[in-house]
């Protein structure tokens, strides 16, 4: 269980804004922080990681205080059980794939992680020689090697092409189903947020305006069906959304007017 209630000053496009994050996350939950650029999504991840210090407030993780301004407690990043995946990967260029993982945790099951992320054949390759998708997998494997309580993903798929993005989304789901690590993902892709998350937190100017399951957060912005036939006053629709389709008998339904 993670409880966050912190405030911090953000450099916004229209001057400084006072951000206030209040959020409770259940153990094992997958939360997407969704919002426009500059809304303060990444700042929240960085605060959780200890890379940014809030002006005030409290962060507790499994009853352990990570930050409490009134008690002057602020655990450094090294003491927080987190795995952080940066937008541009931040792999160590002088180390091979295996060495990047070993650096994170010598005791971890490195071979198992390499196999899970399909990196076994690239174990001795240096990051420069990897493609974007491969780099992202290494960054993810390295974050997992530390066996963190919380996985923090800062737009990890934004630099990838659609095919690679879809593949890595599947892998993220697979990893989350397998390891049940509480995960916070920063994204501004509706599709990605809907597909991956248990809940989506909408962030606007440093404030969480709404937090709920994806289907409630994105009800109108999404094309849920397309018209495949129209006869007289009868329209046949094909449902595009898997989550909605579950509640219907088939993948097609007819609406008569």
């Amino acid at each position, binding site marked *: 269980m993670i409880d966050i209630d912190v405030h911090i000053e953000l450099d916004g496009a229209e001057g400084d804004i006072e951000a206030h994050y209040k959020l409770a996350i259940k153990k094992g939950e997958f939360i997407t922080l969704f919002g426009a650029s500059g809304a303060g999504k990444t700042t929240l991840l960085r605060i959780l990681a*200890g890379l940014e210090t809030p002006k005030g407030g409290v962060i507790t993780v499994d009853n352990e205080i990570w930050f409490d301004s009134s008690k002057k407690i602020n655990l450094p*990043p090294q003491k927080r059980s*987190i795995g952080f995946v940066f937008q541009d990967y931040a792999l160590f260029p*002088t*180390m091979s794939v295996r060495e990047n993982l070993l650096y994170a945790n010598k005791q971890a099951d490195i071979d198992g992680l390499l196999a899970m992320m399909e990196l076994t054949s690239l174990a001795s390759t240096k990051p420069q020689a990897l493609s974007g998708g491969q780099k992202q997998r290494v960054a993810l494997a390295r974050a997992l090697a530390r066996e963190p309580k919380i996985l923090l993903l800062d737009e990890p798929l934004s630099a990838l092409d659609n095919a690679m993005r879809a593949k890595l989304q599947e892998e993220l789901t697979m990893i989350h189903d397998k390891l049940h690590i509480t995960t916070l993902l920063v994204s501004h892709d509706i599709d990605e947020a809907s597909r991956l998350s248990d809940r989506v937190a909408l962030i606007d100017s440093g404030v969480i305006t709404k937090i709920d399951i994806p289907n409630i957060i994105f009800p109108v912005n999404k094309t849920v069906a397309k018209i495949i036939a129209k006869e007289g006053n009868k329209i046949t629709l094909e449902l595009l959304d898997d989550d909605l389709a579950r509640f219907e008998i088939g993948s097609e339904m007819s609406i008569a007017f």
Partner: protein
Amino acid sequence: MDNSFIETMVLTFKLASVTTLILLIIGIPIASFLAFSKMRFKAIFETIVSMPLVLPPSVLGFYLLIAFSPVSTIGAFLKENGINLAFSFEGLVIGSVLFSLPFMVHPVQSALSQIPSNIFEASYTLGKSKLKTMLRVVLPMVKHGLISGMVLAFAHTVGEFGVILMIGGNIPGETRVASIAIYDEVESLNYALAHQYALSLFVVTFSILLLVYTLNKKSLQGLSR
């Protein structure tokens, strides 16, 4: 080859080696400070480090000589503790370290400032201390800056003349290095010996630079492969 020639050459390279080693030890923290500190008066420190690039060596030598003399506060304090730096090898080391400081610091500082901040942050979020991050992640990444700095500092010390003449003089086996010897032999119209020193310096420094640049290029290619 006569003994005094060998003695002078050995002293020259001993001075350059000791200076480079000291610069390597103090240069990394200074370069890190200049690359990462957000201190308001950082420009003052940057200026001090860079001064030897533009200052006539005789100016630095003159002030060091004054500082080392027993008349000055520093010199008097040193003398009380039995240390005499003027016209000694140790004095030359101090002068050379100060004078070659920018040659070591600048390449390392420039390499350090090119490292994205999230490399440091990635290491911290993996539970690693600042020291471990520096030793395992950062220093390997600035290897080429370190090699360039060491080579430049070494070569610059070998070729140093003004500071050494001011604070070291020309004492065989103690402060008489090759560049001073060349000047001295020319003054005595002993051109053959001056040439022997000059050519030796030329060949040795050329070989060191060539070797390092070749190795550096190879390791650069290895990194990007």
